[in-house]
């Protein structure tokens, strides 16, 4: 962000000071310990959770629900978005419905999902799909609409038809928009998985964290939060790496333009 990649000693110093204040503050006051146990205790809890394999199962269910929901949402939303972006009539049919559904906070769908699908993986995945769908859909529609008609005409002139145009002109043309939608949905999907696990789950990190709070084991609770944050961070880094691979051509183009 700020040009130089020098080590931010000031930032780490501030973090170290905050953490040591936390550690000693918590040690000094047993009353405080109930709410915020010393950092060292949280890290020990984290280590034990991993060593005993207690957290691995929860992590795995959260991750698999997330992946399933996210991938299904991406496939659905991109195909639907291309259809709606390309065919004006189809869009005109669904526009009002989309405008009606979008302002409703997606988590409100959880009770309906519980009612129809019961408590379990299917419910959590369905909720995740529903919520992650919107950003990808709206961005894909935008992306397809912003492709220059000349591009498609040129492709036609060169004898490309149907699928070839879709695959070689429309998809690459809309890709930057699609990626924006995918990035927004990444964090939304994680929010929905953990929320659904809290409200109606018996496994997963969301359930684990809330369950630890209810049994007043705040050390384990904070350890669980660290695991979720690490998961979110890791998924984000993975996304950026894949984006760089897939859209490297575009970054090169932008860099050249800005020079």
């Amino acid at each position, binding site marked *: 962000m*700020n040009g130089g990649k020098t080590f931010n000693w000031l*930032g780490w110093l501030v973090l170290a000071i905050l953490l040591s204040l936390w550690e000693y503050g918590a040690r000094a006051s047993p009353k405080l310990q109930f709410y915020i146990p010393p950092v060292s205790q949280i890290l020990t809890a984290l280590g034990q959770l991993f060593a005993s394999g207690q957290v691995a199962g929860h992590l795995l269910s959260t991750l698999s629900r997330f992946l399933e929901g996210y991938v299904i949402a991406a496939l659905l939303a991109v195909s639907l978005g291309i259809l709606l972006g390309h065919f004006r009539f189809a869009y005109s049919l669904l526009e009002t419905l989309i405008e009606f559904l979008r302002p409703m906070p*997606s*988590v409100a769908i959880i009770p309906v999902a519980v009612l129809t699908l019961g408590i379990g993986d299917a419910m959590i995945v369905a909720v995740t799909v529903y919520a992650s769908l919107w950003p990808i859909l709206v961005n894909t529609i935008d992306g397809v609409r912003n492709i220059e008609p000349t591009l498609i005409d040129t492709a036609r002139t060169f004898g490309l038809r149907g699928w070839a145009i879709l695959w070689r002109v429309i998809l690459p043309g809309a890709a930057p928009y699609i990626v924006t939608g995918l990035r927004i949905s990444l964090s939304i999907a994680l929010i929905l998985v953990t929320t659904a696990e809290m409200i109606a789950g018996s496994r997963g990190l969301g359930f684990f*964290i809330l369950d630890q709070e209810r049994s007043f084991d705040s050390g384990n609770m904070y350890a669980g939060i660290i695991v979720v944050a690490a998961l979110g961070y890791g998924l984000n880094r993975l996304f950026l790496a894949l984006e760089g691979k897939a859209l490297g051509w575009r970054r090169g183009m932008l860099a050249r333009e800005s020079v």
Partner: protein
Amino acid sequence: MRESKLNGIFFLLALFFVWELASRSEWVNPLIVPPLSKIFVSFGSLVATGDIPLQILASMKRAAVGYFLAAAVFIPLGILMGLFERCYRALEVVIELLRPVPPPVVIPVALLFFGLEDEMKIFVIFFSCAWPILLNTLDGVRNIDRLLLNTARTFGLSHVKIIWQVVLPACSPQIMTGLRVSLPITLILVVISEMVGSTDGIGYFILDSQRRFKVAQMYAGMLALAVLGYALNLLFNLAHRALLPWHWGMLRKEQG
């Protein structure tokens, strides 16, 4: 344009008709998907008895406090971090470590500290609105033309005056963006936190209706939420127009 709008409305009406028919003729289980007319009747009576307005009022009080508290803390912080590099560097690591925490995960922490009280929801909303508001403000300040700042300095304006008369107006569009992004986040988080730990509010109302198997009432609550989301967006647009009329005009022009 008008015709396409009409298409959409017809399609929606057709969908409503199919829903009604499917439920009445029991193609789908009417216990799970009640006829639409029943949902509307339930919505109407719940609004008339004041049940839904009361629940929404409870939710909105929490949402407003959390939202404006976040704005009051993180807009000034963003300006400070944007103006003073050292301030940015000092907080960068802490922020980067906290940012990947998905907001709903903070709910158990808030529950531990505040129990089921209003403060619990307010804290959760405050935390989740922090990042969009802070990062957009920061971005806005950084993208201010340095010439503007230097000119203000040349004319001998004090720090306070520079912030008030130059920085704040120049980055107000980005601040607005941060506030706009935070709006649906606020609504989502107030609903989630009421579902996980509350005794009232629209989020609690919807989940509780489901658990008591009052299905029409549950859908009515969702309808109320959709209306609320739509109304909040409208309200935000009005505020945007009143506070930054020049920017609003620019946006309108861009969209054609």
